[in-house]
């Protein structure tokens, strides 16, 4: 039994006799390709090619195809090729392989790159419009769901709401506290370090207080919630969509918006202001610790300075933004979840889109609020 496949070529005038030997199987494919390429020129030259199959010890689809390809090449342009000495148990396979690859579809014409770019641009524009439509549709559907609940308060999914509050509110507290604490500490440290040069260290407290309460507290928390809970919403709803759970709900006469989306978005709207408050306090605490250990400012002075620097207005400006950011995060996360199609890849893509889009929108919203509050003098 040969362990290596061989291909013996015996030319005689116009005719060429090819005698493959040994195991022509997938395991030896690299060698098979070399062998079939090595006789290519001779096959092109000969008018009659005979493939003597009697020396083959093992054959599988791959080996059979390589031989069939040789014979097709030999048989092209009016020449002839034939198999001889085919063992019985290989003939079925050869017959099968002879049927395949007969109709090669025309290769897709390479599209014009300029047109391709233009097409992409147009598609992106249309998609952007569609995004806005979907956002507004979801907002409207949520609004209708809220009205429905206000009419008949018993229809509120209280269990689901409480569970979501536990998941995205209570369970998020440790990480929110840790990160905002660190951010507060870092801002305070930077403030002391740079303000010290012109003796304005005490203004660090003003900076920390205003920055944290007005902007950073709520912004950082919203971004974290978008990453932590928004992505979870998208993945959850997306896999429910993939497994037709959402279709099952609709066919039972239940509105997925009422059952799945309203409790989730409502939980976000309730939890985000609370988390933002807790985060802001943690950031102020972090700033206070830095003030004591790095800025040589005792807690009493820190609190007194804070008392002078900030007012309830600053706190209101921050916390008022939180429910709106929560609404944006919730709507984006849920509508992206419902856009998931059949594949696992689409789930991943939609989850990424959800997080990127909601963080982007949160920051845009923050900017709009900054303009608004500035113009009403808050």
């Amino acid at each position, binding site marked *: 039994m040969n362990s290596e496949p061989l291909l013996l070529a015996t030319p005689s005038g116009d005719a060429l006799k090819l005698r493959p030997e040994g195991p022509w199987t997938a395991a030896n494919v*690299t060698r098979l390709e070399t062998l079939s390429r090595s006789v290519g020129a001779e096959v092109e030259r000969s008018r009659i090619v005979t493939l003597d199959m009697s020396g083959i010890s093992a054959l599988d*689809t791959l080996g059979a195809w390589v031989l069939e390809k040789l014979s097709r090449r030999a048989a092209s342009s009016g020449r002839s090729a034939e198999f001889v000495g085919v063992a019985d148990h290989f003939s079925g396979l050869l017959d099968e392989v002879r049927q395949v690859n007969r109709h090669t579809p025309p290769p897709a014409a390479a599209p014009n790159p300029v047109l391709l770019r233009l097409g992409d641009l147009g598609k992106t524009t249309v998609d952007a419009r569609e995004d806005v439509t979907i956002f507004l549709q979801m907002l409207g559907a949520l609004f209708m769901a809220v009205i429905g609940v206000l009419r008949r308060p018993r229809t509120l999914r209280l269990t689901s709401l409480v569970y979501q509050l536990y998941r995205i509110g209570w369970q998020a507290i440790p990480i929110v506290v840790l990160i905002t604490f660190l951010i507060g500490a870092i801002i305070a440290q930077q403030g002391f370090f740079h303000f010290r040069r012109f003796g304005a260290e005490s203004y660090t407290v003003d900076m920390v207080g205003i920055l944290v309460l007005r902007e950073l507290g709520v912004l950082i928390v919203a971004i974290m919630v978008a990453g932590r809970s928004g992505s979870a919403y998208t993945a959850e709803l997306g896999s429910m969509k993939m497994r037709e759970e959402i279709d099952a709900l609709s066919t039972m006469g239940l509105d997925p918006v009422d059952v799945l989306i309203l409790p989730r978005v409502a939980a976000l709207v309730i939890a985000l202001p609370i988390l933002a408050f807790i985060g802001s306090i943690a950031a102020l605490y972090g700033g206070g610790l830095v003030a004591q250990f790095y800025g040589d400012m005792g807690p009493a002075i820190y609190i007194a300075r804070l008392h002078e620097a900030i007012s309830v207005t600053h706190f209101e400006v921050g916390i008022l933004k939180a429910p709106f950011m929560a609404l944006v995060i919730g709507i984006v996360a849920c509508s992206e979840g419902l856009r998931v199609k*059949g*594949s696992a890849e689409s789930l991943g893509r939609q989850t990424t889109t959800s997080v990127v889009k909601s963080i982007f929108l949160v920051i845009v919203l923050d900017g709009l609020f900054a303009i608004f509050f500035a113009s009403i003098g808050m």
Partner: protein
Amino acid sequence: MGEQQEEFAIRVRDLVVGFGRQTVLDHLSLDVRRGEILGLVGASGGGKSVLMRTIIGLIPRRGGIIEVMGQPTGGRKDGAATTWGILFQQGALFSSLTVRQNVQFPLRENLVLSQELMDEIAIAKLEMVGLRAQDADKYPAELSGGMTKRVALARALALDPPILFLDEPTSGLDPIAAGDFDALIKTLQKTLGLTVFMVTHDLASLTTVCDRVAALADGKIVAIGPMRELLQSEHPWVRAYFHGKRSQMLQHEMR
């Protein structure tokens, strides 16, 4: 191994598999002959899929010996794709790859060959399972149930493995498609000389394509043999399975 051909493709001896305190397979023994199509029947949740997954090595066993092609299997080993092809119940196609790439995947991972040959082999396999070359660039999400199974079969056969495992190959197919699929498996088994291990509930498949049928009940193989012999079996579960109302019609045809 040399010229001597093993008589059995798969030998299972005293196999014990369990989860927690539950024992699913209890000292089960089963032989699959070379070149035969063996159908495995059993109650839902009775351990059919567990047996198949244990032979493949996806589920750890508590005891017993499994030999595939005369070699004892032990945990993961290299080149599993060259030993067997597996058709999972849901197809288990890689959803981020096209049909063509799915079929090429085992080739690409196990062999060194040119892209041209790989494309040709992929199309050849697809045509052998009854798909057209035009379907090669579709994604699994765009395929119907029957096409998914065919693509999964083409992928399982990509390396011409000697053994093919099928987990409920005809479930979810309409009777015509299921009949086609059975015929396809029979043809491929003949041309490629495959040994087929098929888990199925489809009585029509059992009667038309299986050389032998094994019945799994209470964690053991309680009956094994050609379909006719199984119909004569005295085991209560086997009787209930083949002589239930749903089986009446098929049985009638057998006589």
